[in-house]
């Protein structure tokens, strides 16, 4: 019974890329009964704690993994625009595919892996490589035809304009 549980817990851990990345056997929780005991001895960083909580109470992780996705994104709004920043280093501007369709902004592309010279050893390989795609749903008042995109220092910045009418107007009191 106990052995079976061990096996399941390990399998769960392996399916979650973030945790596998830690590679630290000390942060693997196998038996619920032991958790309280271990916690007191080894204080851990916040992320490990959060992951533990998620495993304990949340149950199954998302099918797309625990990480929010690649590339990391920041989104903001101004009265005149929606600003989207995608942190995707190591690309060229031509390698991005940016589309606005039906009120949805899609950013996709492919990050090519660095090919090591023959006979070289890869000690650490944390970089994302391969195809990626992220989607942001936009507010109703956007003007899809006046979308601009620029790539600087490894950050793709997409600016989607909003319609004039939606911008708040100050009404003077007579």
């Amino acid at each position: 019974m106990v052995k079976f549980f061990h096996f399941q817990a390990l399998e769960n851990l392996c399916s979650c890329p973030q945790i596998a990345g830690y590679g630290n056997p000390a942060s693997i929780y196998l038996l619920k009964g032991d958790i309280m005991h271990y916690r007191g001895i080894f204080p851990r960083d916040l992320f490990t704690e959060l992951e533990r909580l998620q495993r304990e109470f949340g149950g199954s992780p998302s099918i797309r993994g625990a990480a929010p996705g690649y590339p990391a994104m920041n989104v903001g709004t101004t009265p005149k625009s929606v600003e989207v920043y995608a942190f995707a280093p190591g690309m060229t501007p031509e390698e991005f595919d940016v589309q606005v369709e039906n009120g949805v902004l899609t950013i996709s592309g492919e990050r090519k892996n660095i090919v090591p010279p023959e006979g070289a050893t890869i000690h650490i390989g944390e970089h994302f490589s391969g195809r990626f795609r992220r989607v942001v749903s936009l507010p109703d008042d956007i003007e899809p035809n006046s979308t601009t995109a620029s790539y600087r220092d490894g950050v793709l910045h997409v600016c989607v304009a909003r319609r004039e009418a939606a911008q708040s107007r100050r009404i003077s009191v007579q």
Partner: protein
Amino acid sequence: MNEKVIKRENASEESAAMRPAVNVVEDATGITLYADLPGVPKEKLSIHVEGDNLILEGELEINSPPNMEAIHAEVDLSRYRRVFTLSRELDGDKVSAGFRHGVLELRIPKAEHAQPRRIVVQAT
């Protein structure tokens, strides 16, 4: 007491940094490190070697409009920092660097004495 609390807050703010993702590749003559530092302009990147430690630091500079209201942020810190320990055969004085589209490429050669040497077997 208040002063102490403030000082501590400042310290934690200073130490809060993102860990850049890296690839490290070793060949016969040295090590090449690639670090993802998106959002860091060249001027805000700092690489230094202190004793055995290689310290990578960078500050983000995102020129967002001043009246922008953030509604979703996955990158919410303004700096990167990561420290590596160099092993003895690496020559910390001869590190060379290139930086393009947010990817830093660092070359750390092995010291002269650690370079591979082919010994020719003499026929007698």
